[in-house]
Structures are given as C-alpha cells and as structure tokens.
C-alpha cells in the first residue's frame, strides 16, 4: 500500500501528541510500517503545532509535505486554515469547530478571520464538529480530541474494536472509559 498521510494540527497543549500516538498505534496494529513526527519544547507552549503520521508498506520520510495529506485533523479552526494546503485534492479535513485566539489577536494586532469553515468547504471535504462542547457534555472538556479522532476514524479503514484496543493501550488507565465514550461520540456523528 502506498503510504497514507495523516496530519494533526492544533494549539500547543491541546493533546496532539496523544492523538498522534493513537494513530501510530492503530497503523501498527494494521501491520503497517509506521513513522510519526512530533513537536516538543518551545513550540508546545501555546504555539501552532503539527504532528505527522505516515503508514504503509514502506515509509521513508517521517513528515507529510504540502499537497500530500489524506486526512488533516485540526483541533482548532484557524489551524485548519493554516494547514489546509497540505491536503490532497480529495483529502478529508476533520475540524474541531472551536476558536482559540492567538496572541496577535488577543492584543488586537490581528483579526481572527471570519467564515473560515465556509471558505474551506468551497475547496475541501470538510467534516466539522464542535467537539469541545460535546466533550463538556461528557463532563471532561479535555477529551474533545478523541471525539475529533472518532470523526476522522470514519475516513480510515480500521474497525471500532481495533480503535478501542489501541485507545486502551495508549491513554492513562483511569481515563480509558471516558476516552472510549468520547471516541464513540465522534465515530457515530
């Protein structure tokens, strides 16, 4: 199989690492060669963060380049906009319909663009979900990333049981149940 390219983008601290590790785990379970690339250090401090997951029969480079992503998972609208050009023409853009103002917007030096999703829908297949609100309903707003992942999982070739197993092996033991529940919310949307 030619390598499948997945990108996860968001704001440092939103849990992109956990999500990319679940994605790496699922690809491994599918018997593929897998490479993941993460961001640590200063960029993690509230900055724009990108992680890459690539899997297939044989994967060389650990990064996804412009125009190559099959699935782009964005944890925030502005980050979806920033990285949308990494998608293949027929790629899927899964986006958390949530706004976090970057510092230039907070201090009034820039404006948060209006109508991001509407604009993106003209060019890409967009699957938007307000995962943060959905996660609050579950009682833990931090599980929003599993909801977004659940939506993305609809566009990937793994069974629900496979996802469950990887979630169980990846998230902290105490949070397995809530994370599986969150995944379900996204998977059935």
């Amino acid at each position, binding site marked *: 199989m030619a390598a499948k390219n997945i990108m996860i983008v968001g*704001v*440092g*601290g939103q849990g992109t690492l956990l999500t990319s590790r679940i994605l*790496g785990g699922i690809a*491994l379970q599918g018997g593929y*060669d*897998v*490479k*993941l*690339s*993460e*961001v*640590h*250090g*200063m*960029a*993690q*401090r*509230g*900055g*724009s963060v990108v992680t890459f997951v690539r899997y297939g029969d044989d*994967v*060389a*480079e*650990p*990064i996804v*380049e*412009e*125009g190559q992503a099959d699935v782009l998972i964005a944890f925030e609208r*502005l*980050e979806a*906009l*920033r*990285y*949308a*050009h990494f998608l293949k023409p027929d790629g899927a853009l899964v986006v958390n319909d949530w706004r*976090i*103002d*970057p*510092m*230039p*917007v*907070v*201090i*009034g*030096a*820039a*404006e*948060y*663009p209006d109508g991001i999703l509407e*604009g993106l829908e003209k060019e890409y297949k967009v699957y938007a979900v307000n995962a*943060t609100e959905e996660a*609050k309903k579950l009682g833990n*707003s*931090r599980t929003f990333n599993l909801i977004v992942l659940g939506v993305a999982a609809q566009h990937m070739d793994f069974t629900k049981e496979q996802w469950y197993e990887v979630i169980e092996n990846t998230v902290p033991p105490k949070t397995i149940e809530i994370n599986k529940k969150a995944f379900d919310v996204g998977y059935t949307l």
Partner: protein
Amino acid sequence: MLGNEAIARGAYEAGVKVSAAYPGTPSTEISEYLVQYKDDVYAEWSPNEKVATEVAIGASVSGVRSMACMKHVGLNVASDPLYTVSYMGVNGGMMVVVADDPGLYSSQNEQDTRMVARAAQVPVIEPSDSAEAKDFVKRAYEISEQFDRPVIFRTTTRLAHSQGLVTLKDREEIEDKPYVKNIQKTVMMPGNAKLRHVEIEKRNKELAEAANTLNLNRVEMNDTKIGVITSGIPYQYVKEALPEASVLKLGLVNPLPRKLIEDFAAKVETLYIVEELDPVIEEQVKSWGVKAIGKEIFTVQGEYSANMIRQAILKEELHIKEPAKAPGRPPILCPGCPHRSVYYVLKKLGLHAAGDIGCYTLGAVAPLSVVDTTICMGASISSLHGMEKAKGKDYIKNWVAVIGDSTFLHTGVNSLMNMMYNKATGTVLILDNSTTGMTGHQDHAATGKTLQGDPTWAIDIPALCRAIGVKNVVEVNAFDIDLLEKTVREEVAKDEVSVIITKTPCVLLSKAKKPLYRAVPDKCKKCGMCMKPGCPAMTKDKDGTIRIDDTMCTGCGLCDSLCKFGAIELVKEGER
C-alpha cells in the same frame, strides 16, 4: 519508538552503565526513557552539560561504558572536557549524544555539531531513523573502544522526535575494563598531551581508513545518472524524492571514507551532496578534487524535505497551493503561568530585563515585551553586570536580570559570584517554578528529586545566594503583584546586589482541580486592564466585552487582582 527512546534502548542493550545529562530539546527524553532500565543503567540529571560530560569521562576512565546527552548548544558548555577527552581517549567506551536543531524548533541558534566534532577531532556517528538509532549506539561503543576515541552520536530534532519501528534485543553484559594507572594517557599536562596529540592523529587516520569498509556506511547502487551522498534524516528525503538514484549513505560522518566516496563519485554522472545545515561533507569532498553539487542548490538553513530535493535536483515544478493568510500563532506563556505575573509587574515599572534560556524567554513576546536580551544559559546575570561596568550603577537602575531556577543552577550561579566579587549593585530575579519547565518538567538539584523521582537533597537557592555573599535575598509569591512591585522597586533602588526569588510552581505541575474565573459583563467597564498581561484564556469581543475560556483558565486570579470593578469573579463549585 521515538528516536530518543531508541537511543536509550540502544544504550541499555550496549551495556552502558552510567549516563549523565542536562535537559535540552530535542535530547531530553533519552534520559527519561533510561529510567525504566534503572537496575542496569545509572542515569542522572547533572546541573549542566560540562558536568554531565565529566561524569561520563570518569565512568569511562573507571572502565565502564558511559554516555552524556545534550542539545547542540549544550555541547558548547561541554566543549572544554570534550576537546581534552579527545586527547585522552577512553577506557570503557564513551559516547556523547548531541541533538542538533535545524529549523530552530526550540533553540537560540542553528549550529552544526559536526563542525565542533571536526575541531575536537572526535568521530561522529549519525543514524537516519529509530531502528538505526538503536543499532548504531552499539556500533558507536565498539568503535569507541576499538579506536580509543570518544564518539559523538549526532541526531537532529526530526530524528529525535520521530517514531519508527525498532526490533528489541537483550542487553549485552559488558565486562568492566580493568583500570590501569596510566598517567601519560589520563593526565593532560603539556608533556603528555603533546604525545597524545600524535597518538590521536594516528588513531583518526586508522579510523578514516577503516571507514571505507565499515558497515555503518552503505552504497545503494541504482541508476547512475544521479548519485547522492547523504546521511541522517536527509537520507529519508532522498529516498522519497529520488527512488531511482544511487546513494552513498554515511553512518560515520567524521572522519569521512575518502576511498569509498571517490569510488562512488567515479561511478555516477552527477554527484550531489544532500546534508542539512553546514557543508561539512561537501567541503571535504570538494577539497579532494571530486566534482559535486551541494550548497549551490541547497540552503544552510532549516530542515530539508523531499519536495525541496525534487525542486533542487530534478528541477520539478511542484503544483503546491499557496498557504492561506492566517494570523500567526507564536508560542506564549501558558494560562496561569507565574512568569506572566512577574513580567506584568516589570512592565508596569518600566524595567528592562536581561533575559535567559527557558519558558520565561517568552517574556519578550508582545504584549509583555519586557525581555531585552537572550543569549545563552546563565548570561542574564553576567550581561547585566557588563552593562553596569560599562555605564555605571545608575544606568542599571531600570534593569534587572531574569533567570529560572534550573538555569540559575546550570551556570547562573557563577555569574552571581562574579557580581559579588566585582562589586556589582544589580538586581537578579530568580523565577523559581520548581522545575525545568520548557523541556517538559525535569527535576534538578533544587527540587529534592532525582531523575528517577527518588527523594534527594534539595539545594536551598536562597541560602546559596546568601552563602555567596548576597545580603538582600527576598522571596515573594509571583501572584502577589502588590508585594512584588514594592519589592522590586526597593531592591532595584539599592546600591547592593539583590536577589528576588519568586517561588511559585509551574502551573502545569499540579494536576489538582483548579478554580475557575468568569467575566461579569454587567460590571465590566471595558477598561482593558485585565487584558494587559496577555493571558491566552481571555478574549475581547469587538464591542470590548471580555470572555474567559473555561477550558483554558487555570484560576491563577491575576485578572481578578487587576480588575478594579469586581467584574471578574470566581465560579462557585456546582456552577461549573
């Protein structure tokens, strides 16, 4: 497995017994992953990279396999022992893992460790994925012991923080080498070092010769139109972009295998050299009269990619969409960060800050913009001292030095000694958040815990400052902004050295449920005071209404203490 995890695993399998490091992105996780092997590998956080390297040298002299781990700029701190252990050679094998940061994801410069290694005449081994990272560690120790050389194991951010598949093997129990006193080899005074210099030149020549047949270097003959010499992560980009090309992949990048390279060059029509950062391989290869193309078409900055190679070598026109226009999102201090509170006060007082390396470097970012300088670890205190000696004590009445707890213990303490010795009068703020924050919360000599999390002696920073001779040592809670303001005012005015320690733990350290604040629109006068510190959890709507994002607020209360109208209130339990 993460590249860093694979290096730790490789060290474990290679029978390493001692490892020492100072945290530095992208090298930090190597030591953290070593903790799981604590029954077999002693690993520690040292206060700085020089100390860590010397710990590794000591272990090597005593006859065991050892390593020190650091980021590229850490090697600058460790270069003193490095240059001389190069003369000494090893007893037990010794490796210094150095992680470069092309693209400056989390560093103050983009230096190339291979240049340092050439200057120090130290062999360099470079893997190109996690599997090689693990296997090459073992080869590094074999080479170290066979050729009596310390070895630099070079990685880059992309390798250190990428995951790939790795096959695990058992640990090899390596018998300790006997220690035999040999003053000529281990006491580097002029007479001995002069002889050792001759010896290491010989050893390096032997290694360079052996490099022609070492299996660390690999020729992949394919179509001969394009030949590429490469190493490390760029090898993966070459494979992705030029699957048809012939490739000479170097695993040992210093010294270079001259014969192997010349033979390869003779077999291909056009030879390219693809290496991130400096033209280290290229300049040597060209100096032998070999025709090659390198930095004529490639940059010395940042990371490479397969697309970059397609464009540069194949002259392919890529049809890539322009990125959308979107406001930038630079890194910032976290919501609830105690540094924000300190910088708010410094800004209010109109003070300049000589800054240092850590999360608090972000005090240079708008709207705080307090930090004036950031150079290297420990430089805040010494550069403030330099300003005073240049311009006099009144000049620095509107300056302070700002440094973190871990950085203070790293090299800042030397600079404070200098201030006392040389009759300075400046004010130093130690932002003590009880951890090494930026690199992801590592313990240090003042946290009371070892790398393994075991309890240990905690250095008392205030007592240390007093022992150096500082009379004015004041401790203040970072969030008590009134007291902090008063303290800074008073201490800066004094004609004596002052140290103000704001001891407030990093907000990310506590997992306890935190209080939550909300804005009350009815009481809000839209004055904007609460927005001044630039908290990312707060947004101002177009009409000036303030909102607090309840998923981000950590309940530090800074906004509440700035609001004069009671328009920010604590959310009661049960209403959340």
